[in-house]
């Protein structure tokens, strides 16, 4: 997935920072609006970004989210340093979750995060190493 790049920015996300959780996704939404991306595409991108951001806040020590925009597509790359995922196939299953009661109290942890990211992507890749972290590649066509 090549193409001429018209925008790229990397954001830092801190694990455990519940107060600012969602700030990066909010910035991504604003940038996409300013770039004139269609609303339907923005909605898919921000939902996927928000789910990925929340995963870092809850499960990882820290991470980065890189938004790249070309005239054809959006690429959202999410890299975290954390525990990693032992069984990706299981984690991709709707309803499967390892969320703590604290996460559930916030209205999350229903086991919809990763499946929902995939649902909102045109192409989705996930790689994870236990004890090191997880990398997500989310592609959404414009």
């Amino acid at each position: 997935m090549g193409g001429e790049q018209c925008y790229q920015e990397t954001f830092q996300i801190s694990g455990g920072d519940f107060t600012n959780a969602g700030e990066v996704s909010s910035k991504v939404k604003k940038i996409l609006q300013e770039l004139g991306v269609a609303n339907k595409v923005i909605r898919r991108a921000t939902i996927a970004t928000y789910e990925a951001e929340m995963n870092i806040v809850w499960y990882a020590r820290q991470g980065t989210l890189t938004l790249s925009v070309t005239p054809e597509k959006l690429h959202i790359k999410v890299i975290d340093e954390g525990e990693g995922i032992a069984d990706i196939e299981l984690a991709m299953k709707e309803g499967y979750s390892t969320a703590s009661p604290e996460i559930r109290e916030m209205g999350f942890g229903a086991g919809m995060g990763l499946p929902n990211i995939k649902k909102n992507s045109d192409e989705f890749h996930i790689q994870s190493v236990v004890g090191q972290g997880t990398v997500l590649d989310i592609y959404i066509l414009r």
Partner: protein
Amino acid sequence: MTLQEVKEILNAQVIFVPRDLQVEVKMACGCDLMSDVLAFTKEDSLLLTGLTNLQVVRTAEMANVKALVFVRGKEPDRETIALAMEKKIPVMLTDLPMYEACGRLYNRGLPGCSEAEEGSCLVNGR
């Protein structure tokens, strides 16, 4: 259905409204699970929820939820209201429990997200 009608049907108190109550919602979703809101709602929905934390407003922002109604008389804290104001998302509060609040709106013709057609969620220039 306009937010003014929602307010009257639910006997709701307006906590914050960016402009006026003539804003229209096409459908509604009653949900305390934000994961499910992100997965199943469509654009321009009204969200009824008993959860009052910051993530409700964040979720509304990301999913393009048009307005929020907090049910069961649960008042959101200052931080949550401040974020809704920043994001210009209208917020109302009703004493009704979830089932009754949803039932009253449905009874008056506001459909659920699974019933409303995708196209109808993308009107009004969105």
